[in-house]
Structure formats: C-alpha cells, structure tokens
C-alpha cells in the first residue's frame, strides 16, 4: 500500500482499536499508553472517553498487575486529555509520583540527589519516563520549576559520553554505554530546546544514530524529535518511516503505529512546547 505515511499509519491504528481504546496489539484490551498515544495521533474522542473513564482516584493512569502499578503513561494521558479537571489531576499525579532515590554506586555512577521518574513509582528514575514527565510539564505546567529542573538535571546526568541517551545509565562498570535512537529521541521530545547545549548534542547523536536503527518505534520517535526541532533530517526520516510502514506495518505494534501517526501528522502539535 502506497500513499501518505500519516494516512497509512492512522488507518492501521484505527484498525487496531479495541472498544473505545487501544491495546498494545490489535485485539488486546485497552491500556493507558497506547490509548493516550492514539488519542493524540487521531484526535480521537472515544479514546479520550476511555481515558476519562479509566483515570484512577489518585489522578494517574496505570497498568496494574497485582502490587505493581506501572503509571508512566500518566504524562502521555495528561497530554491527550482536554483542558479541565481530569488533565490537572493527571499532571498533579506526575508531580507527586516521582522515582525513588538510589544511593551513589560506583558500578553505575549517577547523581543520587536527582529523582526523575521511573516506569513504576517505586523504582529508579529512567530516561524515557523522565522525558515523558518533562514533556507533560513543559507543555501543561511550565510553572513547575522544581520538578522541571530535576528532570532536566537527570537527563544531563545520564547523557552518554558522545551525546544522546542509553535507557538509563551512561556508564556501567567503567564502560561507556552507547546511546540509542529511540531513547535519544524520547529525551529530545521531552527537552525541546531546554538546556540548549545538551539538546544540540542529543540532536547530533540522533542524526548519527537513526539511519542504523530502522525499527518502527525508533524511526517514528526520531521523526517526531526532528520535526519538533525543525531539523533537516526530517525528510529522510519520514521517507524511511514510510518505507518501514510498507515493508512491515511496524509489526502491528500499536505504540509504534501511534507514534508514527503522531510524527507524520497534526497530532505532533499537541506535544509542542510553547516558546519560553
């Protein structure tokens, strides 16, 4: 199937719908992350309704598995919700559910005074969930200075030696870890120009990385980061994503399809940080 990559990604995404929301794969029950991303990608009222109906009492959105509450999608759900109480409670949840501190450890050096955000609130702060929280705060609550400073500092602390980001650590047992395209793109989407030198090094790293990491999620998030930055690599990344959609349909990974639809369509503007 040829044509506009946004239309193709959106069509595939719509076909994956599960009731009002979206699961991680077609046919699976709705979950917060794919539903929030699809709501942004498609400007979808039903997906927003599912989010509104599944917001937890504490304002968060979570995949709950027994004692484990995976709430990192709350930041994305906040971005997907329309202005109002539900969105404000989601942002409040982001602010009050930061990661756990971890003592300094020479095996994997990090600044123990920084918190950031984890995939679950009872674990350590990690790059992608911190970037999501930072994105939500930049867009929806730019007055949250302390939390934003913490998120920025964590991303600076975890930056790989040659720019860009691994999933969490920069060094393990004395060895520099390499940056990845997908995590670097996530961090850049969260930063959007904040910490200009850090941001510029990250963009340089992503320009280097993306041509060799042609998975759907990596390409889609890289394209989103390039478009938000106005980077020249946008055109090539868009063509590569279109090719991947043709070739594999991103293996029907709903999160990847939603990011592809966001990156190629108007939904990206929902994630754009206002000029400071």
């Amino acid at each position, binding site marked *: 199937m040829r044509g506009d990559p946004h239309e193709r990604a959106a069509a595939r995404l719509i076909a994956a719908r599960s009731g009002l929301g979206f699961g991680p794969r077609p046919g699976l029950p709705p979950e917060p992350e794919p539903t929030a991303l699809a709501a942004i990608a498609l400007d979808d009222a039903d997906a927003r309704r599912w989010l509104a109906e599944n917001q937890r009492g504490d304002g968060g959105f979570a995949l709950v*598995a*027994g004692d484990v509450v*995976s709430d*990192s999608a709350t930041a994305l759900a906040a971005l997907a919700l329309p202005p109002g109480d539900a969105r404000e409670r989601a942002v409040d949840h982001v602010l009050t559910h930061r990661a756990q501190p971890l003592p300094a450890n020479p095996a994997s050096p990090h600044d123990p005074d920084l918190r950031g955000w984890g*995939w679950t609130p009872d674990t350590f702060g990690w790059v992608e969930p911190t970037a999501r929280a930072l994105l939500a705060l930049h867009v929806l609550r730019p007055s949250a200075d302390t939390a934003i400073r913490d998120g920025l500092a964590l991303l600076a602390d975890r930056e790989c030696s040659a720019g860009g980001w691994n999933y969490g650590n920069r060094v393990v047992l004395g060895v520099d870890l*390499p940056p990845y395209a997908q995590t670097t793109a996530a961090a850049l989407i969260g930063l959007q120009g904040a910490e200009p030198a850090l941001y510029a090094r990250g963009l340089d790293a992503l320009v280097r990385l993306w041509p060799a990491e042609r998975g759907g*999620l990596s390409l889609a998030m890289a394209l989103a980061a390039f478009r938000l930055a106005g980077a020249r690599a946008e055109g090539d990344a868009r063509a590569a994503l279109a090719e991947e959609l043709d070739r594999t349909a991103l293996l029907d990974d709903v999160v990847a399809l939603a990011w592809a639809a966001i990156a190629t369509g108007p939904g990206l503007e929902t994630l754009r940080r206002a000029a400071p």
Partner: protein
Amino acid sequence: MDRRTFLKRAAQVGAGAAIVGAGGGIGGRLLLQRSRRPWDDSVFPPPGRVRVAVVKAASYQADLEGIVLAGLREVGAEVAGRSVLLKPNLVEYDPGTAINTDPRLVAATVLAMRRLGASSVTVAEGPGHRRDVQYVVAASGLLDALREVEAPFVDLNAAALVRRPLHSRFTDLRELWLPEPVMEADIVVSMPKMKTHHWAGVTLSIKNCFGCVPGRVYGWPKNVLHWAGLTEAVVDVGAAVRPHLQIVDGIVGMEGNGPIQGTAVPAGLLVFGTDPVATDVTAVRLMGLDPSRVPSLVAAARFLGQGDPDRIHQAGEDVERSVVDFAVLPQFAGLRAGAAPGAGGGVDAGPA
C-alpha cells in the same frame, strides 16, 4: 561433587562474600537466608536423576537442524502433538557482537521441533533493553530467519497477560503477570546464549526467563525485578516460567563484561536438557566456572531442579574435556573453579 559438597561450597561463597565487602552483594543476601525455605514443596517435588547432553557444533554453518534433533532425542524431549514456544535471548542488538542466541540456531530448532511432531512452534521474546522490538528482531536477522521457516514471532513485551501467583518467594513479589503465549504453551524452551553477566555472574536458561516478563508492566530493563533483588528475582522468575526444555547456545558464547559488552568466545558447544538447573550447572562447568559459587544457581538447586553433578547423567561430550574457560570480570573471580573462598563474589547490582 555431591549435594553436600555443593551446598558446603555455596555456604563458603556466602561467608566469603560477606567478608570481601563490596564484592559481597550477590551472594550475601541470598545465602544468609539459607534457613528459610521460600518455596511451596508441593509444587516443586525433589528432582531425580536427570539427563543433560553436551553436543559439539563447530559453527552456525553446521547441520544445526540435525544436531538439534539429535540433542533433543538424547535428553528424551517429548514434543509430539504439543505446542512449543522457543524463547531465545535477544536482549539487545549490536552489530558484530555475540549478544543474542543465533537466529540460525533458532530457525534450526523450529525445524527440529516440527520433525519431532510439534503441533505448532512459536518464537517469542520480550527484549530487556530495547523498547523497539522490531529493530532488535529485524537487525539481528531473526525476522528473516523465521520467515524462511515460516514461524511466527511474538513480542512478549506486548502480549496478553495472565496472573501467575509465585510458588517461590525469594523476592517480595507475590505474583507475576506473564505473557499468555508463554503460560499456555505446552512446552517452553529456554534458549539462552552462553554468557557471563556483569551483575549476576552468568546468564543461562534460568536468567533467560527474564525476557518473559513484560516491560510494559515491569519497565525496561525490567526495573521492578532489579529493584526486588536481581539474584532473588532470577530464581523467582525462573521458577514461575519453569521452562520444560533448554538449549544453550555456546557455539559462540560471550565472556567478560556480558551480557552486552563482553567478548565473543567460539566454544563450539550446545547444551540440551529437560531440567533448567541441571542444564545451567552443566553449562557453568563448561565455562570453567564453579556452579556452587553462582548464588542464583545454588538457590535454584534447593528446589527447582537437580544441582548435584553426580545426579546429572551427562550424555554426549565429556564435560571435563570440553571446558572452555570463559574470562570473568575481576569482581567475579570467585566464580572460577578452584578459586579461593571469598575471592570476589560479585558486586552490588546497579539499577540496570
């Protein structure tokens, strides 16, 4: 080495680890709790004698389908009429490295399982480091290899989940939510790479079960498990998945700073088994390491399978003569067969 010697050595590692301070992380916590029996005896009956096969395979160009078929027959694998799920290790992809179970071995195993009469064969993995599963499976060559043998791939990070109460309690986790395709398969085959691991010492068929734990619940790289205590989580997850068969890819293994940044070791070996503890004990011995010094394996040998080398019938190649010494990081020098007690039992695991 009998069970008493195995456990005595293990206790020495625990005591030594406590003495060496920073080197005591992985052994100390687990082994100091030896008086506890944190598992349900009714679920884990005492293991009997088991059979493990060590088979030579010089390279991935060899007749792997025939070799795998012979190895599976050697350990009495019964898969006829049953659904089989192969769980290789694809934690990450980095060109030119030996991180992953080789796709050629996975494809050959698909064909061998079909020849043994399996009703279906699925390949599944939930990569621990990369969220972009498509990148890992495509770049590693697995997707093309599976296309050639017309086998489906399932992303375990995105699969339907079922609740599984834990019958072992080395961690405080009371249950795990695990992928339905793993829990519903008649036969789960753990197919690890033969590797050293910078936090756990080694990663083999039991640790490979971490890839069954969905990242969308437990984070990348399965942070909740690390936070719960890596060594303890290895045991609990291994006991929850409890793979029926194991095929360890030691054709080319990884030594040193594994599981990602180590060095390739052309060991030319495959290990087949029906008991994950016995298989891993054998693989550790083949790596020139002492299984009684690997804390997760010591704990697993208390309930999950046969850890006594004297009760493991070794088929195929002779283990002692097939040893290929895998280099370990200095902090794991204590894992080396013959090392003095207390000589480096690991480090306190970082958050990854």
